[in-house]
């Protein structure tokens, strides 16, 4: 049974006259908390989609020397720019930092996360 079917069963059980008050209350609480979780997961997915850095954005950031130096220092900024160029040359579409890599994996499976 999938989660959606189970939730429909919970609702019909709670609506039945023979369900006890504590069960009805627990179903109500559960459904309310579930709704909050659904809002949080949709928000997370929206923020993930907004924050993945595509390769052109990465190139632009890496070329902004002042900005890159602030984060990585002079040597680090140089390496960052070289890596961004190499990544683009290799045909990558997105930044390959840990956060972006994992974010892409999560977005590829967002329906699983939504449940």
């Amino acid at each position, binding site marked *: *049974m*999938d*989660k959606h079917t*189970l939730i429909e*069963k*919970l609702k*019909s*059980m709670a609506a*039945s*006259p*023979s*369900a*006890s008050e*504590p*069960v009805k209350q*627990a*179903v109500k*609480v*559960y459904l309310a*908390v*579930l709704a*909050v*979780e659904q*809002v*949080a*997961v949709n*928000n*997370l997915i929206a*923020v*993930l989609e907004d*924050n993945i850095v595509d390769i052109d954005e990465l190139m632009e950031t890496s070329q902004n020397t002042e900005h890159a130096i602030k984060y990585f220092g002079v040597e680090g900024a140089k390496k960052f720019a070289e890596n961004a160029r190499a990544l683009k040359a290799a045909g990558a579409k997105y930044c390959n*930092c*840990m*956060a*972006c*890599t*994992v*974010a892409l*994996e*999560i977005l590829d*499976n967002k329906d*699983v*996360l939504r*449940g």
Partner: protein
Amino acid sequence: MDKTENSEKRALIDKLKAMAISPSCCPELQKATLSYLSAVAFEQVAVKSFLASLNEAVDMSHQTLIEKVKDMAVTPTCCPVLRQAAKTYLSALTAEKNAAKNLLKEIEADISDINHLVAFSHSDRAVEKFGAERAKIFAANADALKASGAKFCNCFACTTAREILAEKNVLLE
């Protein structure tokens, strides 16, 4: 590394993640923890990418994805807005699992077994609730149900409750 060492390391890493995203973690400790977790995560991504290259389609379970959300939230390149969204989601998820556990406990406690049903159907409370005539029918039905070998009440709420309990892992995982 054997399986026990692996799961011990995983448990320790989970503790480090929880500590690093806790509001009371001092900046120095957070920085050192994030730096270590980042190195571990890079290693894991490298291994997973290699494994994925051997077997292209990677379907992930809900649990794996939750681990990924945790991994992502502790990387140094994760922006604060995304880190906050991940934290909010993980808290909401924990609240949902707690509510599910409480709900299942209530459901388990509420299913009437056949002896309880028969006792109730012959009680004054049944007369109070259904009236004398309907209580008589109710008691006859309960007796017939017990005679047929049923172990539980067959009202809609109890029947649905048992179906839900049989699939409780769907709510807990």
